[in-house]
């Protein structure tokens, strides 16, 4: 594309002469004798060079030139001037950053030389400007990346750490964990009496029984951590071909066995029919670990439901997967949200994460009581090449249809 030169002149003869010279060097030219039009052309930013006729140094022309040079400080300008203009004028032009001057009479080769030199300069400056602009963009992107990293490294990590420590604190020190043992030991130390004669400490039987209870609880904590560690490390993980009718029978037996736990809050568990067409199908599974999965999921559904609620277990399937949905009523969280939100749907599988600070000790029979349950469940399902997701959905099973349900959807590949 040829360079586009802009000429401002009220001298028709000069305009024609410049047109002719520009044509020789294969550039295109737009000329105007109207100052407003000139502004409009400059605003369009289509011309790389302005040739300004300053042969007539009237006050008006001086003002026009001064305004243009100050309003378009990056516009490349060549002035056409009379030979008689003195140093004082040239000094003034320099202050306005005029690129070059061509004096009258205008000789063709001198004009060509000035124009091509100015255009080349303009191209270089444009490249530098682009480079600077790109460099600035890269720099700004880098700053953003570093700011983001900084945010991750500080506030977000601090926030995650804070959340994690908070959850661990609740898991281990609330209720029947290490916290209870510390409190019991503090009673022991303050109330034990030393028998000088026999050189033994005497402990009240109430304290002894407390210690025994605490010891049993800490054993559970230890067992829970050991089991979690073994599952997460994929140790002792054996699978077998499990007929789905056997899986359904085992789940039915488990639901029956959970009646006392459901009875704590007068709840019931309703199981849907098993798809008959799957009777001859199987999955690859570890029955022992599957029991842990459904024990944990059903206990959670019971814990997070209220008095008298019903928990549903529904079965579905497609060509490749068996789907099991466990539904329980969704309730308002402390932050005003209901059930499982997008924000916490992925967090619930994180170790020690709890949706609530309440640790309901009525469900002390759980294998994984310390905020580790869903982490283990997720891992076991992963080992079965299945999937698990939690979400909140409209209630379609219960009388009050304006409510929501929490649904956990577990899928296993069918053989």
């Amino acid at each position, binding site marked *: 594309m040829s360079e586009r030169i802009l000429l401002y002149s009220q001298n028709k003869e000069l305009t024609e002469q410049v047109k002719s010279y520009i044509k020789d060097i294969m550039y295109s030219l737009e000329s105007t004798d109207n100052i407003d039009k000139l502004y409009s052309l400059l605003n369009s930013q289509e011309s790389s060079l302005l040739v300004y006729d300053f042969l007539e140094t009237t006050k008006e022309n001086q003002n026009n030139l001064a305004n243009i040079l100050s309003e378009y400080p990056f516009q490349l300008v060549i002035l056409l001037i009379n030979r008689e203009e003195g140093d004082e004028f040239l000094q003034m032009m320099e202050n306005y950053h005029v690129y070059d001057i061509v004096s009258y009479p205008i000789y063709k080769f001198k004009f060509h030389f000035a124009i091509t030199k100015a255009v080349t300069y303009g191209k270089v400056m444009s490249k530098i400007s682009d480079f600077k602009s790109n460099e600035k963009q890269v720099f700004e992107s880098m700053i953003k990346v570093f700011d983001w990293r900084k945010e991750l490294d500080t506030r977000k990590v601090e926030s995650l750490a804070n959340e994690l420590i908070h959850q661990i604190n609740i898991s281990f020190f609330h209720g029947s964990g290490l916290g209870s043992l510390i409190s019991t030991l503090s009673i022991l130390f303050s109330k034990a009496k030393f028998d000088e004669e026999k050189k033994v400490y005497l402990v009240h039987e109430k304290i002894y029984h407390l210690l025994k209870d605490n010891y049993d609880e800490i054993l559970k904590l230890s067992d829970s951590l050991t089991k979690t560690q073994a599952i997460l490390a994929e140790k002792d993980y054996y699978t077998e071909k499990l007929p789905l009718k056997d899986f359904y029978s085992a789940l039915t037996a488990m639901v029956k066995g959970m009646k006392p736990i459901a009875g704590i809050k007068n709840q019931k568990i309703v199981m849907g029919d098993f798809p008959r067409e799957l009777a001859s199908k199987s999955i690859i599974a570890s029955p022992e670990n599957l029991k842990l999965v459904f024990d944990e999921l059903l206990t959670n559904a019971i814990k997070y439901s209220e008095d008298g609620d019903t928990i549903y277990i529904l079965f579905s399937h497609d060509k490749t997967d068996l789907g099991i949905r466990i539904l329980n009523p969704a309730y308002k969280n402390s932050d005003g949200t209901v059930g499982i939100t997008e924000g916490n749907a992925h967090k619930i599988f994180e170790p020690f994460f709890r949706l609530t600070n*309440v640790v309901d000790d009525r469900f002390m029979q759980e294998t994984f009581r310390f905020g580790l349950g869903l982490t283990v469940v997720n891992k076991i399902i992963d080992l079965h090449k299945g999937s698990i997701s939690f979400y909140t959905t409209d209630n379609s099973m219960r009388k009050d249809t304006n409510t929501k349900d929490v649904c956990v959807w577990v899928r296993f590949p069918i053989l």
Partner: protein
Amino acid sequence: MKKILIVDDSPMVLNIIETALSLEDYDVVRASNADEALKKIEESKFDFGIFDVNMPGKTGIELVPLILNHPNGKSMKIVILTTESSAEIRKKGEDAGASAWMVKPFKNAEMVELLKQLGE
């Protein structure tokens, strides 16, 4: 003998506090949630209360004004018991009318001393 109402959803925590305070000659009555505590206050007067914050149903902080506004609980000194010791939650407890705060896991000597001070 001073009478104290302890409210916590954890049977283990109730056992510990009951054991500790019975050995200090307190008459201890236990409740596993706020509703049960409100029934206990209907039945008799208490000198002290130790309420856990995080319980299923009403929290310990929500329970404080309900107890203090009851004729049998007007003169009670209530200690809030929790794993969380943030200033915000302490402020909520104070605003609700609690007299003191105890962080889990609590130390026996500190709990006994605190009740002694509140009783003076």
